[in-house]
């Protein structure tokens, strides 16, 4: 829909909202198809085409097909929700389209086979909010994802988009905006948890007329993808938040730093920028307030350390992304040595709601010191993987079991890892921990950006520690010796432990090196790098000892320490292992017990995962 005129006043906005909402409501039904990266990978773009041509062929012009951002439940994609009833279909393929149109659009029936069926209780659910994955969530940041088409600005405006901006610019002073954000108790979602209002106030108080805003969309934490989904699925909420922030601190330019691997996010943000400029929501004299502001997108180039604020600034300036000494903090001297306020994507997306609905409302959600919600990327060995948004203070057990549906294949839970390479592993005994910034730090983990990775009995904790160190060795910028060399040595020690060459005293040596590296590194990459090692030693010391003293890997992961065999009693001769084995090490007739030729086996563990009867043995 081409919008010709610029919005000069809040009334213009209200009129446009009115039009957009009427247009939306004039449709009898809307079919919302998730077109986030996960669902696209499973074919949702074909669905959009198929639905459109089908509806046209049937002459159903009163039904809208909406290609939306990520709904979160990627694991069951492609997802389709039919409004206004909110009928929820999952795993939809283009061959199902005709059926859906016949039964649920033209008729008033359900397509039973596409309803979500709980793998545990075997119940079927009809409506989105009843599905256990969604039932316990509270969606503030994700308020629009799944409801609007991210490349249609009128969709965003129809759901009260830019109302907060109009309010801030026409009814509030910059100080009042900062007061409101500070009162809401919002803390940075990029990992550190620094109070956002306080950060703004520091930058606001700096002298100088050129200030900058940066949105940190680098999302380097492996296993986390919530910032991506927000940028792809609701780009305007981030832009609106940034514009409000810029008004509050007095900045006229902003940069949005987007991770290299997220081209769809860049594309949707570019479209959003064009549309906002066309409506005068970016540019000169926004809403006649005299305030001018514009945003530029910068693509990252694949370096984890560029998520660190000083590294990111150096990267925007076109250099290698090595962090530098702080202070001076970016708020005093950042981009091109000017005062700069940097916040994470999710932090920015919270701002419009706070201004619109008020600090008190926002502060009523969450715990005493951590307000609002947090989006987690719930992944790993859990049934329902995807993005979940819960109030701060929700327990890990609720997230893993009620929302996540428990462990895959009914295996035993071992740990959850939060905070990515800076975080730690939390054992089963602490499942009732309410998740907020302080509680996680107390147990040796970290909120981080929100990766929540579930591990089961078949996860080796020494291997996990080694994995994170390998990641960090790779990503350390190399500026300081303790981080560069210390992590390298720690990784070498962990490697020898997992290869059966661990020595007595290795655990203590790791702890000692960890202390040096943590204390003497310049930036928080090195500063927090020991966490995965220390937390696994703290809670899973017995696994380290099994590797070192008994040369055993209890989880059957470390290939040098395991030998796979087949339990001939349990083996039903289904042949699944045989099919997957990359070296043809398995032989056997159908329905008769199979066997593994040890001389050919490369201990890859594929059969161990593939066997449905747990007949593969590990020693």
């Amino acid at each position, binding site marked *: 829909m081409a919008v010709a005129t610029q919005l000069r006043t809040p009334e213009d906005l209200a009129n446009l909202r009115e039009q957009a909402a009427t247009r939306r409501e004039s449709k009898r039904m809307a079919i919302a198809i998730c077109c986030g990266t996960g669902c696209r990978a499973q074919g949702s773009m074909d669905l959009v085409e198929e639905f459109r041509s089908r509806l046209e062929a049937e002459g159903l012009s009163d039904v809208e097909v909406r290609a939306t951002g990520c709904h979160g439940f990627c694991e069951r994609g492609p997802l389709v929700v039919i409004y206004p009833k909110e009928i929820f279909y999952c795993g939809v393929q283009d061959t199902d389209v005709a059926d859906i149109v016949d039964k649920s659009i033209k008729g008033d029936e359900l397509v039973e086979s596409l309803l979500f069926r709980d793998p545990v209780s075997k119940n079927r659910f009809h409506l989105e909010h009843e599905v256990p994955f969604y039932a316990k969530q509270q969606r503030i940041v994700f308020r629009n994802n799944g409801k609007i*088409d991210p490349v249609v600005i009128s969709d965003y405006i129809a759901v009260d988009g830019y109302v907060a901006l109009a309010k801030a610019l026409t009814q509030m002073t910059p100080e009042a905006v900062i007061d409101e954000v500070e009162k809401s108790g919002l803390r940075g979602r990029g990992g550190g948890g620094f109070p956002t209002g306080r950060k703004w106030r520091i930058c606001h108080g700096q002298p100088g007329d050129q200030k900058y805003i940066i949105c940190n969309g680098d999302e380097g934490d492996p296993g986390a*993808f919530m910032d991506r989904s927000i940028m792809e699925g609701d780009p305007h909420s981030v832009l609106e938040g940034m514009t409000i922030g810029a008004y509050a601190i007095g900045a006229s330019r902003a940069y949005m730093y987007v991770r290299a*691997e997220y081209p769809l996010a860049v594309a949707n943000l570019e479209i959003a920028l064009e549309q906002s400029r066309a409506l005068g929501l970016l540019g000169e004299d926004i809403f006649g307030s005299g305030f001018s502001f514009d945003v530029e997108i*910068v693509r990252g180039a694949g370096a984890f350390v560029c998520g660190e604020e000083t590294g990111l600034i150096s990267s925007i300036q076109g250099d290698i992304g090595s962090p530098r000494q702080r202070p001076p903090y970016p708020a005093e001297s950042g981009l091109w040595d000017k005062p700069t306020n940097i916040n994470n994507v999710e932090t920015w997306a919270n701002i419009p709601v706070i201004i619109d609905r008020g600090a008190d409302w926002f502060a009523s959600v969450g715990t005493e010191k951590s307000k609002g919600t947090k989006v987690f990327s719930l992944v790993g060995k859990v049934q329902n993987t995807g993005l979940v948004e819960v109030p701060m203070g929700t327990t890990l057990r609720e997230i893993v079991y009620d929302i996540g549906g428990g462990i895959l294949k009914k295996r035993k839970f071992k740990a959850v890892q939060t905070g990515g390479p800076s975080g730690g592993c939390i054992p089963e005994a602490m499942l009732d921990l309410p998740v907020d910034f302080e509680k996680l730090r107390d147990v040796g983990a970290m909120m981080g950006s929100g990766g929540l990775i579930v591990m089961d009995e078949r996860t080796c904790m020494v291997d996990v520690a080694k994995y994170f160190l390998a990641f960090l060795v790779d990503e350390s910028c190399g500026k300081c010796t303790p981080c560069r*060399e210390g992590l390298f040595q720690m990784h070498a020690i962990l490697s020898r432990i997992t290869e059966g060459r661990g020595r007595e005293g290795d655990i203590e040596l790791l702890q000692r090196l960890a202390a040096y590296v943590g204390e003497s590194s310049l930036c928080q990459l090195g500063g927090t790098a020991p966490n995965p090692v220390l937390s696994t030693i703290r809670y899973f010391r017995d696994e380290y000892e099994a590797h070192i003293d008994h040369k055993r890997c209890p989880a059957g992961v470390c290939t040098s320490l395991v030998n796979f065999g087949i339990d001939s009693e349990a083996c039903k001769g289904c042949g699944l292992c045989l099919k997957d084995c990359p070296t043809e090490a398995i032989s056997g007739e159908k329905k008769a017990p199979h066997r593994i030729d040890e001389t050919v086996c490369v201990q890859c563990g594929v059969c161990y995962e593939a066997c449905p009867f747990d007949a593969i043995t590990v020693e």
Partner: protein
Amino acid sequence: MARMGVFICWCGSNIAETVDCESVAQYASTLPGVVVGRSYKYMCSDPGQRLITDAIKEHNLSGVVVASCSPRMHEPTFRQAVATVGMNPYMLEMANIREHCSWVHTNRAEATEKAKDLVRVLVEKVKRNVPLADIEVPVTQRAMVIGAGIAGIQAALDVAAAGFEVALVERQPSIGGYMSMLDETFPTLDCSQCILTPRMVEIMQSKNITLHSFSEVEQVEGYVGNFEVSIRKKPRSVDMEKCTGCGDCWNNCMARNKIIAPSPVLPGEHTPPEVAEKVDAILATYTDPSGMVIGALQDVQREFNYLHPDALVYLSEKSEIPLARLYSVASFYNAFSLEPRGDNIIRTCLGTACHLRGGGRIADAISRELGIGDGETTKDMKFTLERVNCLGACALAPVVTVNNKYYGKMTIGKMMDVLEERAGQDAGQPQEQPQEATAV
């Protein structure tokens, strides 16, 4: 005609548990030239040695093979023993069937076969041995240490302290090596100068050490104990007695400070016109050169499928950004490739979620199938493999992208199908598409 004796030791149960010693002895007896083959519990014991010497006398043996432990352990024992009955000690050799066989194997049948092989080889060797005599040669009691970094300095000091003369050779004008460039040492963060400099002074003070700085070893001849080394002292044209080390001559030296400039190149002179054209087009989209490095490199990579060296040189000349800075940025970020990449770019995710769900196995399977490692390209330029840390679709782990198309919940079987399909395509056509841009 050789007359050989072969003696197999059990070493208690050390060898006998894994190797059937008696059958090795019997096998040995059948080898050509072998007249006696025996096994015994401890060959190194007195009765064991007597077994050998008696056999030499009885059968008039010309050579002996003892199959037992490492020669490091008992070769002198057995050689002395055979000498007592008049055999030249060098006509005895040992087959190591303990460290090289019984201790490292578990399968008794296979280990026994291997022991037989080892014995047979040694029998053939001894048949070709000739009697040798021990001689004595004088050893020069002086040492040379090459390289005067911290390790060389310490070695020279230790040898000198033990009372021997040392010649210490250093290529650079000053000793100290890399350590003199460091501030602190890892992991204790000790002051590195405080460790190094006192030792540098000690080198000068030690009467046993002759320092040859600004010198290089040209040739090494001779053998252990009697080396001949030629050292080339580089010219310094300085009277060492009078020099105070002020450094003025160094700084003012006409020869050293002559500026050697490459012949001037004009932008684009050596650049193929089609490369220059593309880079010009990219440059035209940027106004501010200072902040453009990463973006421009991304554009170059998209245009050429990798960072083409000609394009980088041209970019540097036209934009006046030093080439070194371009390379420094290009090698810092993972997204840049300095090598040509294949038609199909496979990215396997090794992020945490994918690691836990077996992403590594898929990467390994691709490596095995295509014979390429991380960042490498197949010879036919069809495939490049990149292992990356999270593709941002973690809920579908393990994730692989081929030319930016996402494949979730990947298995080795599905991966192989994709490879097969892509391998059938015509070569020379880069397949990577920028990801579909819009949601509509």
